[in-house]
């Protein structure tokens, strides 16, 4: 217990504390999705009705699960900047010489990022009624569970990439290169229906597509038509779980490589 749970819990707790003590990160993380939702939602709703969704559905409503996905995506990935920070401040070195495995370190970091993403997703979920989506206790729990699995996978993807980076500038450059296309082509902004074949295929292999789909299903369970034409719930759950496992293994492998600078 003290060799696994304690270090994992401790590293996870540190992630959360660090985040809360950096006011700029806190503000940015809370306001960014709101700004995106309001501005993009307002911009698109006038000219665009997502194909394959019910006629009466407003764009803001279609877009809402996509914003939840964005909250999870951005919070999860950007939480891994602490690895770059820790390397620069030397904190990481202290952790690396402690008698704990690299998997333990990754698990602690990943659960920290997951906690942050979950907290933000739940916070943003409060706005669902404004999008015309009625919440039930069950749908909140469902979204929460999906958020945990998706965030865990994304944090590990972030750790996999961030582990070898040594500057925060480099981190931002690389992550933006990955984040934005991943989000654009996840069904968050528009469905895969009637898109060019290449875009459709990218959307099909993008793990976040299944995350967005799982969130849609979680919000609209019992009313599958409202979720639109997205991958079915069972497939979505399998993919996001698989992604979480694979990315955790990849991040652990990356952290276990020797001869780091």
């Amino acid at each position, binding site marked *: 217990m*003290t*060799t696994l749970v304690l270090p994992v819990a*401790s590293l996870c707790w540190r992630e959360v504390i660090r985040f809360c003590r950096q006011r700029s990160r806190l503000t940015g993380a809370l306001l960014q999705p709101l700004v995106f939702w309001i501005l993009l939602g307002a911009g698109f709703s006038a000219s665009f009705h997502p194909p394959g969704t019910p006629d009466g559905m407003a764009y803001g409503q279609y877009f809402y699960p996509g914003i939840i996905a964005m909250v999870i995506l951005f919070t999860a990935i950007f939480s891994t900047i602490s690895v770059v920070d820790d390397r620069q*401040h030397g904190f990481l070195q202290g952790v690396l*010489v402690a008698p*704990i495995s690299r998997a333990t370190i990754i698990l602690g970091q990943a659960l920290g990022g997951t906690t942050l993403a979950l907290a933000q997703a739940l916070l943003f979920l409060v706005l669902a009624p404004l999008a015309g989506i009625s919440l039930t206790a069950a749908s909140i729990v469902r979204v929460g569970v999906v958020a945990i699995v998706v965030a865990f996978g994304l944090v590990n993807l972030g750790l996999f990439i961030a582990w070898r980076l040594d500057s925060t500038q480099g981190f931002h450059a690389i992550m933006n290169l990955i984040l934005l296309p991943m989000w654009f082509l996840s069904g968050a902004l528009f469905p895969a229906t009637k898109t060019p074949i290449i875009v459709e295929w990218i959307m099909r292999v993008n793990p976040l597509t299944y995350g967005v789909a799982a969130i849609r299903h979680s919000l609209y369970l019992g009313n599958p038509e409202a979720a639109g034409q997205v991958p079915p719930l069972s497939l979505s759950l399998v993919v996001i779980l698989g992604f979480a496992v694979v990315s955790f293994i990849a991040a652990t492998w990356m952290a276990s490589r020797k*001869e780091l600078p």
Partner: protein
Amino acid sequence: MSEPAVQIQSLTHLYGERKALDGISFGVAQGEIFGLLGPNGGGKTTLFRILSTLLRPTSGSGRIFGHDVVMEPAEVRRHLGVVFQQPSLDPKLTAIENVVQHGHLYGCWGRTARRRAHELLGRFDLADRTRDRVESLSGGLKRRVELAKALLPRPALLLLDEPSTGLDPGARRQFTHFLDTLRREEGTTILLTSHILDEAERCDRLGILDQGRLVALDAPDALKARVGGDVVVIRAHDPDGLRAAITQKLSVQPLLVDGSLRVECARGHEFAREVMETFPDAVTSVSFGKPTLEDVFISLTGRRLWDREDTRPP
């Protein structure tokens, strides 16, 4: 006989073409305070990274309490407390949080961890700063938090890379004294690197590292005894010219180091007077004294430990 705390055998490490460590071998007995003295770039940090399992050596082996640093890193890390040259603190956490959090990684937690963290921070005169965030502490205070952090899990072997950098002389004395206490009370073995002479003097044995080689290994007094009785340092307007003149007239070979001439001889005061009398115009100053560890380093390598006079610590 008990197992040595550290056993290093023909350790070599290459960064590309450059040899950071060139076939180093030495052992550190349990309970010993062992120092490594040498200039920056001499290989000290590389050696520390290998011993703390962060770097795999190109060849040779290192063992910590009998455990190989490459084959059994987990076993090795269980015995280690490491203070790196750069800080390893989380600036967003408070002093106490940093120390306690580190304890968690070693299975030490709850009230035990907190009590021990308070005790250690108190020992380093940080009792009233425990709740301050590390980012608000000065360099010297951070250093002390760092030491408290490394000591929390009661490591059997403490690796300290330039531990007293940033500490003022008072705090440094206190720290050296603390290391003695630690060794006496808990039997901790201490391997440290230093470029501060009085700190190096207090080690049981010293290894002198230069350009990746171990050029000497002995007790500090024995090392100093290798240098002749006194060291005379002569400054001059034209050191090269004076060097030639001294070689010719007084039949000794002064060493030209960093713009001044050095001569090792049995009776320093007599030689100093002789130089002053023979070359009254060429000499700007002459001084002499018992050899220091830096004199040992110069006599072994022909170079000073520090590049310029102004970087020399007090």
